């Protein structure tokens, strides 16, 4: 936590101005207020994400034609690579970059730690969507819900690694200690990202090769199918941006409460000792 240490009035008062016994004040950190600009960015991202997602679903289910080889199953391709793109490259990639920036002494700030935590949580949700939608596509295509294929297995390993990251963050520790150990775990987990990406090239896998992010960056899909696929990527990226902004804000509020609830508890103990009434309304049930 970058917040200043708590200062009580009783600690800073001079003998000429003794603190009023009925008003022990503890918290000096102002509550985190979201700027109107940040709120506007969040709102615009949310509206664009919603419109884009609805349009992608409409184009994917009703407008685009069935594929010559896959039939209607190609419609899952408009969303499955999009969620995989967000989970693997945007969310976990951002978590890795943020972790490096936290560990780098010149850029060390809890901002990067919060950003990494937010990206990982959102990434885990998208990773689950990737595995489930891939499995639903695999059953009619391959005849099985799951195969221990290199792409599928490495993606599942990535999910487990980042679930471990989230579990580690729940271990009680000082914010700096938590941030440092989380950053190391994020970097360790991120080693799996290139393995997932190149798995279809390095091994002989059931999973098809990349449609967009292939070595030559050439689209292997055309016409309305290509536009719908690209719109799916953009829309799901906007969904990620909106979720990241909201989740980051949740992290800011959680950290502020963690720090200031301690201050309130100290004030209560002080007021018990002096016989003065403590802060009137302690929040309960705040995680």
């Amino acid at each position, binding site marked *: 936590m970058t917040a200043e240490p708590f200062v009580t009035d009783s600690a800073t008062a001079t003998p000429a101005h003794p603190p009023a016994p009925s008003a022990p004040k503890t*918290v000096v950190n102002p509550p985190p207020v979201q700027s109107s600009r940040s709120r506007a960015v969040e709102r615009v991202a949310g509206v664009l994400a919603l419109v884009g997602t609805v349009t992608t679903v409409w184009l994917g289910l009703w407008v685009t034609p069935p594929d010559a080889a896959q039939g209607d*199953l190609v419609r*899952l391709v408009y969303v499955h690579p999009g969620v995989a793109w967000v989970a693997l490259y945007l969310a976990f990639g951002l978590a890795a970059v943020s972790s490096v920036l936290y560990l780098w002494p010149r850029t060390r700030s809890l901002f990067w730690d919060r950003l990494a935590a937010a990206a990982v949580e959102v990434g885990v949700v998208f990773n689950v969507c990737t595995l489930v939608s891939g499995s639903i596509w695999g059953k009619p295509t391959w005849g099985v819900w799951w195969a221990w294929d290199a792409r599928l297995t490495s993606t599942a390993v990535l999910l487990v690694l980042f679930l471990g990251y989230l579990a580690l963050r729940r271990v009680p520790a000082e914010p700096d200690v938590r941030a440092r150990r989380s950053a190391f775990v994020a970097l360790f987990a991120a080693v799996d990202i290139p393995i997932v990406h190149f798995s279809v090239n390095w091994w002989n896998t059931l999973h098809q090769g990349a449609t967009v992010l292939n070595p030559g960056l050439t689209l292997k899909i055309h016409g309305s199918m290509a536009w719908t696929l690209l719109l799916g990527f953009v829309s799901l990226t906007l969904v990620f941006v*909106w979720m990241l902004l909201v989740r980051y804000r949740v992290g800011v509020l959680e950290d502020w*409460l963690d720090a200031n*609830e301690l201050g309130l508890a100290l004030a209560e103990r002080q007021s018990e000792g002096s016989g003065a009434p403590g*802060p009137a309304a*302690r929040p309960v049930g705040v995680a």
Partner: protein
Amino acid sequence: MRYVVAGYVVILTVLFLYAVQLVWRRRRLARAVARVSVADGPPGAPGAGGVS
């Protein structure tokens, strides 16, 4: 086609539920922050309320 619909339903439901949970979590935390700042600061102090 039922596999396709199932795939869309799963993805959209998971994302929608997570989004609702995020908004709900933020509101609950913002209310808690407002309560703490009101309980701890003098009336009318900066930050007493208005947290989102």
